[in-house]
C-alpha cells in the first residue's frame, strides 16, 4: 500500500494569515500532533491540504461523527469466503505508511473513541490493535492533526483534558478584510471591489454572533456568494442564497440580515 491516491498533486490555494505555516512545519519536524481550532469555514481543512502538499505527504481525512467507534478508526476483521480478514482503518493506514491523518471535527466523536489516539500522541508513537494483538509503530512521516470548532461545542461535547493536552494548537479566525478579499478574489476570480463588498457584508453578519446567530458568515460562504456572482447572479440575490438563508431560519433575524445587506450594498 503506497497511498498514492491520497497524495495531493497540485498546490491548494492558501493564504497565510499568521505564523501558522511556521508552527505547523516545526511541529511536523518534531512529530508533534497538531490541533486546529477555529470557526467553521475559515480555512482549517484547506490549510491541512496545503501543508500536506507542501510536506509531500499523503493525507487521510476522517470526518468524525457521533456514531463512530474505535474500530472505524483503527480497523476491523471482515468476513470473507475464506474466513476473517483484517482490514486497516484510516488511522492505522496512516500510521503504517506514513501519512497525515486529519480527524475533522474530532469532538463529534465519542470520548471513548478518541482515546485510541492517545498512545500515538506521546513519545511512544504506537498504535495498539488489541483485536489483532499487534502494536503498530508509527512511520516517521505519520502526523496526526485534529480540528474542532470551540464556538458551538457545549460543555458535554468537549475534548477530554488528557486528550487536549497532547496537542500543539493553532488558532484560526477569519482573515482581516483585506486578506479575506484577496482570498475570495483569488479563489473565485471575481473583481477585487466586488469581493471587498462581499467581505464587508460578511463581516457585518459576524457582528450578530451570539445575537441571533451562532456563527457569522464564513469565508467559505463568501466564496460561495462570489461563485454565484461570477455565474451571473446579482449581488443581493447571491448574498441571500449563500449567506442569509443558510445562516438562519428565524424570520426576525433573516429580515435584519437582509436589511443589513441592503444597507451595505451600493
Amino acid at each position: 500500500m503506497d497511498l498514492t491516491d491520497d497524495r495531493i498533486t497540485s498546490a491548494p490555494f492558501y493564504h497565510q494569515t499568521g505564523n501558522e505555516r511556521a508552527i505547523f512545519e516545526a511541529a511536523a519536524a518534531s512529530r508533534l500532533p497538531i490541533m486546529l481550532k477555529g470557526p467553521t469555514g475559515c480555512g482549517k481543512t484547506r490549510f491541512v491540504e496545503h501543508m500536506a502538499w507542501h510536506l509531500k505527504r499523503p493525507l487521510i481525512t476522517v470526518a468524525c461523527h457521533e456514531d463512530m467507534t474505535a474500530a472505524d478508526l483503527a480497523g476491523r476483521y471482515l468476513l470473507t469466503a475464506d474466513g476473517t480478514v483484517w482490514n486497516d482503518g484510516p488511522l492505522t493506514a496512516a500510521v503504517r505508511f506514513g501519512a497525515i491523518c486529519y480527524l475533522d471535527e474530532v469532538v463529534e466523536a465519542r470520548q471513548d473513541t478518541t482515546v485510541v489516539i492517545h498512545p500515538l500522541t506521546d513519545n511512544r508513537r504506537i498504535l495498539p490493535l488489541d483485536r489483532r494483538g499487534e502494536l503498530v509503530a508509527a512511520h516517521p512521516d505519520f502526523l496526526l492533526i485534529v480540528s474542532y470548532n470551540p464556538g458551538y461545542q457545549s460543555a458535554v461535547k468537549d475534548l477530554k483534558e488528557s486528550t487536549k493536552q497532547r496537542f500543539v494548537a493553532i488558532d484560526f479566525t477569519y482573515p482581516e478584510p483585506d486578506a479575506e478579499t484577496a482570498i475570495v478574489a483569488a479563489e473565485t476570480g471575481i473583481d477585487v471591489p466586488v469581493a471587498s463588498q462581499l467581505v464587508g457584508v460578511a463581516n457585518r453578519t459576524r457582528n450578530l454572533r451570539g445575537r441571533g446567530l451562532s456563527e457569522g458568515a464564513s469565508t467559505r460562504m463568501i466564496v460561495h456568494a462570489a461563485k454565484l456572482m461570477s455565474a451571473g447572479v446579482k449581488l443581493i440575490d447571491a448574498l441571500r442564497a449563500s449567506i442569509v438563508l443558510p445562516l438562519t431560519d428565524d424570520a426576525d433575524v433573516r429580515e435584519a440580515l437582509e436589511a443589513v445587506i441592503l444597507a451595505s450594498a451600493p
Partner: protein
Amino acid sequence: MTSNDVDEIRRLSTQREVLRAPFAQIWLRLETIDTDLVQQWASASLALFHVNAGPACIIAFWQVAGSLGPGHMRLISKAGMQAANICRLAGAKAALACLETLPICLRLTSVQPASVQAWWHGLDRLAEAAPSLLADTVRRIEILLADGDGFAFADFVAAGLKATATNKARRAAFFALEDSLAQMLLTRRAGGGQGFAECETMLGAFIAGLCGRAPKLKAGPANMTRRSMIASGTVVMPPVYAGVAREQVRRLYRAAAAHAYAHLTLPTVLHPVGPLKPMQIALIGLIEDARVETLAMRDAPGLRHLWSGFHTARPGGATTAAGLMARLSRALLDPDYADPDGFVEKGRALFAEASARLTDPLLSRAIGGLLGNDLGQMRLQFNAKTYMVEPPYRDDNMHLWELPETPDDQLSLTVDTARGVNADNSTTPTPGDGTRAPRARETGQDDRGELLATYPEWDSSAGVERPAWTSLRDHAPRMRDPGAAEPGEATLRAQIARLVRARVVGRTERQPPQQDGEELDLDAVIKASVARRGGLPLDGRLYRDRRPRARDLATLIIVDVSQSTAAVDASGQSVLAAERAAVGALASALEASGDCYALRAFASAGRDDVRLTRLKDFAEPFTDKVLARLAGLSPGLSTRLGAALRHAGAELAPQRTTRKMLFVLTDGEPSDIDVTHPQELVEDARRACRSLRQCGIDVFGIVMDPAGVGSASTIFGRHNTIHVRKLQDLPAKLANVYFRLAQR
C-alpha cells in the same frame, strides 16, 4: 327549547300592545323557515323577556332577526341570548346598544362565527367589570371592530380592564378611547399589530449587524407616538407609529434605528443653546442629521435607499419654513432630487463644500447658523409649537443640546414639541401614580425562611446593578391532600401521554453489544469467531440494540404563586389551580419520558424575603409527596421575578446536561411591595433573562396574559413568550411547548 317557547312568546307578545305589531311582522317571516330555527329564536326572545329587557330591546332583536334572514338565524338567536345576559349584568340600555349594533358587527366581521363570539365575549367581560361603560363603548363599534377581529377586541377589553383596575376615571377614559394606552393599542392594531415590541428582535439584530455594537433600544411611553429620542446612549422609540401604513412600519423602525445609531457611532459634542432661536436650533439639528447620515452612508451606502424612501418633500405649494427645511433635508440626502429654491440650493452648496470636513462635529453649528439667518431674513413664519423633525424616522435631536437647568419658556416649548409630548394628555401611566398598586400584602418577619442566597438587582433608572440586593429564602412546602382528580384530567393525561409517545420516539442510539437483542452485532460476532478459533475466552455479548436516545436535558419549572394567581376566570378556576394542574400533568409526563427536571414555586415580600418553595428536586422521583406539595401551594405576596430567575439559573448551572431549560409560569407583571416603579422589576427580570441566556440556559415564559400587552415579551423575548388565552388551555399548552422545545 321546546315548542312551548313559541307559544309562550306569542302569548306574551299579544298581551302587550306595543309588541303586537312587531310580533306580527316578524312572525310573517318566521313562518317560512325551519321550525328548529324558529324555536331557537323564540328561546332567545323569551330569555330577553325573562331579564326584563323591555320592548325596545325585544323589538330591536326582532328587527335584526327579520332584516338578516334565515341564513343567520342561528347566530342571531345566540346573540339574543348573549344580549339577555348583558341585560342582566349591565341593564337594558346596554343590551339595546349591543343589539342595535349587531348588524354592524356582522358586517365588520364578515359574519365569522368565531369572531362574532369573541366580540360578545369581550362585551361580557366589560359588562361584568364596568357595566356603566358598556352602552357607550358599544356605540364605538366602527372604531373598535374596524379590522373585523373580535379576538382583538376581546384582548383590547382585557387590556383596558387590567390597566385601569384601580382607577375609575382612567377606565372611563380608556373605553371612551381618550386614554393614551387605548389609542396606542388601536394604533398598533391599525398598523397590522406592528409596534416596537414586534420589531424589537429584528431591530436589535439589524443594529448589531450594521454597527457591530450591542444595541440599546427601548420603547417610550404609550403617548409617545411621534419621534424617537436618544438619552444617554439608549434609543427610545415610539411604541407605535401612528398613521403609518402596515407594510411601512418595520421599515420605518429600521430607518429610525439606523439614523439614531448614525448619531451614536460618532463622537458627541453638546452644543450650548446660548442665544439661538428655535428656528436655528431646528436647522442646526437638520444639518447634523445630514452630516451623520452622510458619514454613515460612506460606510453602508445602501442606507441612502432606506432613508430616502421617507423623504417626500418636493417643490411647490406654499413656502413655509418647515416646508423648506423638509426640502433641504431631502436635498442633502438625495443627490437626484432637484429643487429650484435658492435657500435649498445654498444649503446644498454649503454642505457640499464642507464634504471633506464632515467629521468635524462643529460643522453643523456653523452651516446651520448661517442658514438659520437666511431663513430668518426671508420672514417666513416658523411655529416652534408645531414644528417636528421631518421625516418621521429622525429623532428629536434634543441630545445635541446642552440644556440649561431652568430653560426659559420658549426653549421648554421647543423641547416639549420636539419630544412629541402631548401636553393635553395627562392620562399617561406614570409609574407610581396609583394606577398600579402593588399587589402584595405585608407579612410579619417571623416566618422568614432560611437564607439560600443573595442576588444583585438591576436598577434601570440609575443604570447600576445593586449588589446583593435581594435575599432568597427557602420556604418549606405545605403539604395537602391532592384530593380527587379534577374533571377532565383523565382526558388531559391521555392527551399528554400521546404527546410524550410522539416525542420520545425519535432518534435512536447504538448501544454497545448486548447479551440479547434483535440483531447480531457483526463486529461482536467476528470478534467471537476469531476468539473461538484462537481458543481464547468468549464474550457472550453478541447482539446489538438501538435504544431511544436519552435526551440530554435538564429542566427547571418555576411557578409564580403571588397573590394575583388567586384571580379566577369565568369558569371559576383560579390561575393557581390552572398552574397546579399544568405542572402536575407535565410532571407525570416527564416522569414517563425520563427527563431530568425540578419544580419550584416563588413569591416575594420585599427584597429581603423572596420566597422559594422546593416542590421537587432534580434527583427526586415524582411521588405523591410532590403532588401533596403542589396541592399545598396557596396564593399570596408579590412577584419579584428577577431574583427568582437568577436563583433558577444558579440551580440549573451545575446540571451536567447539554441543554438547560427554564420555564416560568406566571400571570403577568413583576411587582413588589417595596418597589414603586414596577417597570424597574421588568427591566431587572429582562436583564436576568439575558444573562441566563448567555450562560446557555433557554428561558421560556408561559404567561397567562390573554391580551398579550404585559411586559412578558419584554422580559422573555417575543420568541420565548407563550401567551395562554384561556386558563383551561394551560396544561395542554405547557406540555406541548415543553416537548416541542425539548426536541430541538
